[in-house]
């Protein structure tokens, strides 16, 4: 428990004040967020300390620290806290540089590492412009009164600079009013704008670290996720669908906005999503938008309309007590070269195997699950689990990452070692059961969404490939890998849109001119081979070709 509390505290400091996640994306973008958040926090904190020290009788009066310099001027109290003055001016300068960057970002977002930013709505605009106005006005206001109530390097300098104009008391009041108005307007617009993420993100971090997960798209946790979305638009660039400026409105940021406004259109957006999880990986707040979309689909899918009576007639006749069990799944049956190559490798390593779905497979259920029909998926899971359990196997090899992720997460096959074939073959290589011929060919490895971001397997396939040839890098790989376009996550994406995604993904993969494109997913293999200009192979195929 103390560990969780400590982690929560650490996360709040790192994510809400310092914005470590954004610094990792782009230093300038990180600095922009850090300077505004941290600078403003310091202004509030130091402001309160000043009140506590100099006017303890006012301590606890909410508005007092905000307009401290103004009130103090009125009461003609002289202050000598040059340290705090310096700190206040420094914080203000920090915020002002951030605001400057923010204004610049509106016109040239690319400099800060963002190709596209979110389109703002009225509430956002009011909040944004008032936020921009607050700090320059505060600087002016404090400068105007700096010769009376004190100041430091920034405010005093401006006061001296504009001496004739500033010393006229008639000019002081309007600037303080302006500052007060800007601040009031921002706070008023806050709940109707994206800046709601400032208070909500703290709540989200607490809830997340407590291990809470949402079960409907609008329960407490989901709500805190929805309001924590700062609509920064990092997910727009991340989304594979937006590659040619198409489908921008289907990216996660707009989905969450539709959800927040309780719009019925949110379902159409949820149905379009590839569920490749790239936006979730990129999100600096850590919002699991894919899960929100899945929940939305599940809510709209009220009743199951399928009929799987026929599954009961399938006999559990497979026996794999003394061998490893192999389940090809639907997609691998479409690309039989993969399992044929795998069997060749297993034979050369003298490993006995049993082919579970040799006569055609019962789908693992993940495509059905992702379509929102949880109940029907359960029927498929139960039958497959029965088949696997009755076979008595200890190890289950899968070729399809879609199945792999689902078997790991939903099947509850305790005691059975579930491995993807890329990992299994790599283990055979490291244990010396197979030997490979190292050539001079170069490869690029495409991380399938479900294997990479979905299951965290990035290194094993690359280790395996480096035993055969040279592994070249793609422009976006590992957790940044772009979906092949074939994903079963999307329900309504059309053929031409999928083609576009496949091509943009290939563009990124072929930047370093590899000889072959290697992947570890039958679906990716199928999607890529249609458009690829160089040969596309599964990792099992390339290994079996290079066996000694």
């Amino acid at each position, binding site marked *: 428990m103390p560990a969780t509390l400590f982690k929560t505290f650490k996360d709040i400091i790192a994510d809400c004040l310092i914005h470590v996640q954004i610094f990792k994306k782009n230093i300038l973008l990180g600095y922009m967020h850090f300077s505004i958040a941290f600078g403003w926090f310091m202004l509030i904190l130091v402001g309160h300390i000043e009140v506590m020290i100099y006017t303890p009788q006012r301590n606890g009066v909410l508005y007092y620290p905000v307009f401290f310099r103004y009130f103090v001027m009125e009461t003609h109290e002289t202050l000598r806290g040059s340290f705090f003055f310096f700190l206040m001016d420094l914080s203000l300068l920090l915020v002002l540089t951030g605001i400057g960057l923010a204004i610049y970002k509106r016109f040239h977002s690319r400099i800060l590492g963002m190709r596209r930013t979110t389109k703002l709505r009225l509430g956002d605009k009011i909040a944004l412009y008032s936020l921009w106005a607050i700090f320059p006005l505060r600087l002016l206001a404090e400068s105007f009164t700096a010769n009376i109530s004190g100041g430091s390097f920034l405010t005093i300098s401006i006061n001296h600079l504009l001496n004739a104009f500033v010393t006229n008391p008639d000019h002081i009041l309007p600037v303080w009013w302006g500052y007060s108005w800007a601040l009031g307007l921002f706070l008023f617009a806050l709940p109707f704008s994206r800046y709601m993420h400032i208070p909500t993100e703290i709540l989200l971090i607490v809830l997340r670290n407590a291990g809470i997960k949402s079960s409907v798209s609008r329960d407490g946790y989901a709500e805190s996720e929805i309001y924590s979305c700062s609509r920064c638009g990092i997910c727009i660039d991340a989304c594979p669908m937006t590659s040619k400026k198409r489908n921008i409105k289907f990216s996660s940021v707009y989905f969450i906005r539709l959800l927040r406004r309780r719009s019925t259109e949110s379902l159409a957006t949820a149905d379009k999503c590839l569920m490749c999880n790239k936006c979730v990986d990129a999100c600096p707040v850590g919002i699991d938008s894919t899960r929100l979309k899945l929940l939305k689909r599940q809510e709209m899918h009220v009743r199951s309309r399928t009929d799987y009576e*026929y599954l009961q007639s399938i006999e559990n006749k497979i026996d794999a007590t003394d061998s490893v069990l192999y389940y090809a799944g639907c997609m691998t049956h479409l690309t039989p070269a993969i399992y044929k190559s795998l069997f060749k490798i297993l034979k050369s390593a003298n490993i006995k195997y049993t082919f579970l779905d040799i006569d055609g497979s019962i*789908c693992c259920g993940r495509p059905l699950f992702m*379509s929102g029909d949880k109940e029907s998926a359960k029927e498929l899971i139960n039958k497959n689990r029965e088949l696997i359990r009755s076979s008595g196997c200890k190890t289950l090899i899968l070729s399809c990452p879609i199945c792999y992720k689902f078997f790991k997460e939903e099947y509850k096959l305790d005691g059975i070692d579930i491995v993807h074939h890329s990992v299994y073959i790599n283990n055979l290589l490291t244990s010396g059961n197979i030997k490979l011929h190292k050539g001079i060919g170069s490869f690029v490895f495409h991380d399938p969404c479900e294997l990479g971001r979905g299951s965290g397997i990035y290194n094993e396939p690359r280790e395996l490939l480096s035993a055969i040839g040279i592994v070249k890098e793609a422009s976006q790989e590992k957790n940044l890998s772009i979906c092949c376009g074939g994903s*079963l996550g999307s329900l309504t994406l059309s053929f031409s849109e999928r083609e576009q995604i496949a091509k943009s993904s290939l563009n990124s993969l072929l930047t370093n001119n590899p000889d072959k494109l290697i992947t570890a997913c039958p679906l990716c293999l199928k999607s890529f081979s249609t458009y690829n200009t160089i040969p596309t192979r599964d990792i099992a195929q390339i290994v079996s070709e290079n066996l000694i």
Partner: protein
Amino acid sequence: MIDFGYSLTSSSRISLDNINQKKLKKITAVEPDFLKCMACGSCAASCSAGNFTKVNLRMVILLLNRGMEKEAIALIEGCMLCGKCTLVCPRGINTRNLIINILKIYKEV
């Protein structure tokens, strides 16, 4: 019944009046690909569920166009939505969305 050594086959007459135009329009609205099918049968040939039962998307589209809804539903409700038919379709039809919507529009639960 007396066995005469032959029997009557059931009528294969198609009555286009049986077509529910409203539903047909609805399905083409949500998935316009419905009209693209050229009945090649790639979907049925590759079907995972087709290994165990009579699931056959080609036939379903044909039957719906002939107004035989009940027969069509019987051929599609065993679909596991695995998506193989989408990958093999030479016309690039989004078969999964089509199947989901056929079940939604035609099958009452």
